[in-house]
């Protein structure tokens, strides 16, 4: 450990590639997410951002390349095994149990984390410790008042917060947030930003987001992805000044 020139990153991908047929969606991506990072991944539609999240989280298997978590190669591990090691993702489109309450949604995750979900003997609701933990988490993120409401009855902003709360219930060390504010009305975006800003500092956060206001408020580092490749990586100041980014990401061209 001491001899290494660099400490292992929270997440590191090397030469990561993913192709669907002849179509290359992720093209030799080398990416480092440092411990405790607030790192945004931006890029135009179809740049392969969500695919990248799917590859890192294990929902998709890469065509080639490796993914390591804290220096350990996890490329061959299943999504469940990566979750056990603290690598958690959220979804761009809510994947909540709409008929269940907020508390139950988070409770499912907490139960799974404690390794209790395989227990076919003990009644699900009888584990008070799990429920209390889930409830405490909801209090922390400001969802306590909604704990017993069914997801389908919640305003969309609150649903998005629940999406993050479920991830927090899994004790993440690395958190991949896929457009946490997508579809949230302008008035409620602040809630999401507050929630992200209050995440414990030791969690490494990778954020995919289109809304630059959010990106510039939260991110300390930004990677720009286009057509599956890393175009540039740098601080927010670097990125906002880069002419290449302005051209590719904003479609700016000199008027002819």
């Amino acid at each position: 450990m001491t001899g290494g020139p660099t400490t292992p990153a929270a997440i590191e991908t090397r030469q990561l590639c993913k192709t669907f047929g002849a179509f290359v969606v992720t093209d030799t991506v080398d990416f480092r997410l440092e411990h405790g990072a607030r790192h945004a991944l931006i890029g135009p539609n179809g740049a392969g951002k969500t695919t990248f999240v799917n590859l890192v989280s294990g929902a998709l298997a890469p065509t080639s390349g490796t993914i390591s978590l804290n220096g350990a190669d996890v490329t061959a591990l299943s999504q469940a095994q990566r979750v056990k090691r603290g690598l958690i993702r959220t979804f761009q489109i809510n994947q909540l149990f709409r008929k269940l309450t907020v508390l139950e949604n988070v409770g499912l995750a907490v139960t799974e984390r404690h390794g209790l979900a395989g227990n076919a003997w003990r009644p699900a609701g009888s584990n008070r410790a799990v429920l209390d933990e889930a409830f405490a988490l909801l209090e922390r993120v400001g969802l306590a008042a909604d704990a017993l409401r069914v997801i389908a009855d919640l305003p969309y902003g609150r649903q998005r917060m629940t999406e993050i709360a479920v991830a927090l219930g899994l004790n993440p060390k690395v958190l991949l947030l896929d457009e946490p504010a997508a579809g949230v009305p302008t008035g409620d975006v602040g809630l999401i930003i507050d929630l992200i800003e209050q995440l414990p500092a030791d969690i490494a956060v990778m954020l995919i987001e289109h809304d630059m206001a959010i990106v510039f408020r939260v991110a300390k580092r930004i990677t720009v992805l286009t057509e599956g490749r890393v175009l540039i990586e740098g601080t927010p100041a670097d990125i906002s000044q880069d002419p290449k980014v302005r051209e590719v990401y904003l479609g700016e061209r000199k008027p002819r």
Partner: protein
Amino acid sequence: MTSELSKTSPPASDATTTAAMDNFARAHRLSPLEALPWLAAVGAYFVFPDYLALGSQILATIIFALSVDLLIGYTGIVTLGHAALFGTGAYTAGLLAANGWGDPVSGLLIAALVSALVGFISGALILRTHGLTLLMQTLVVAALLYEVANKAGRYTGGGDGLQGMSVWPVFGQFRFDMLGKVAYIYCLAVLFVCWLAMRIVVHSAFGRSLMGIRENVARMHAIGTPVERRKLFAYTLSAGLAGISGALIAQTTSFVGLGVLSLERSGSILIMLIIGGVGQLYGAFIGVPLYMIAQDRFATIAPVYWYFWIGLFMVFLVLFARGGVLGILTRLTQRKRGAS
């Protein structure tokens, strides 16, 4: 793990929240309504002494329906070949009894184990596929076993059925009688145990995670659920239950024919379950008796019409009464509640 749990803040203080969470924690407690099927079953023993043979069949078939419900209703795996596991249990019990081991209880247990093993192996192979392909695979597994039983006539009797079963008294004490009293009580007792097991499973954290898989696989993967392993466990459990059901029917009728492995068997159990209602534990207790009693009445009067009417009824069911009888009852009670 304990350190994780103790680290959390003290339980919710709010009184209403606490009460609601208590309710939630009690969701698995028994309700008085759940005594109904058992009262009915015991009552039927005394009221219809001439129909105990049919009664035993119904009780045993409820177990089969429960096993299918665990897959379709709770886990969301649609199977068209569950007769494979039912038939495996039936032939296991039958072969044991025909070859000198007629003890019913141990025969039942062995049948359950063999079926569970077949379920585990076939499940490990086919559960990797999804949707139509999985449906096909379940069908093909059943067809495969049917063909094995059909062609291994030397052991199974092939199309003529397994001959010469000799089933011993239950616990060496209670001989199966002509009226079917012992058979009925035996089936009822086994059903009770299976129901209890099933009830515990579906209310457990494991059962919850099965429902999670049914509702949203992507989410379950993302919270770290080993989805494939859970599905395989559910499949194996379900296979064991199906095996018990098949073995019960083999033991109480002293006969096993190729029909136990047929597509018709896989299809009809699906129908019985759906008539009752899927994924609610008690659908089996409603659908199976309704179907089998109607079949018994109709089929003796006009067997030709039986298929026609049951088919028509199914079409009606899927068009107008999704959720089966339980679904209709739920809707009625909700409407009443909404009106008041």
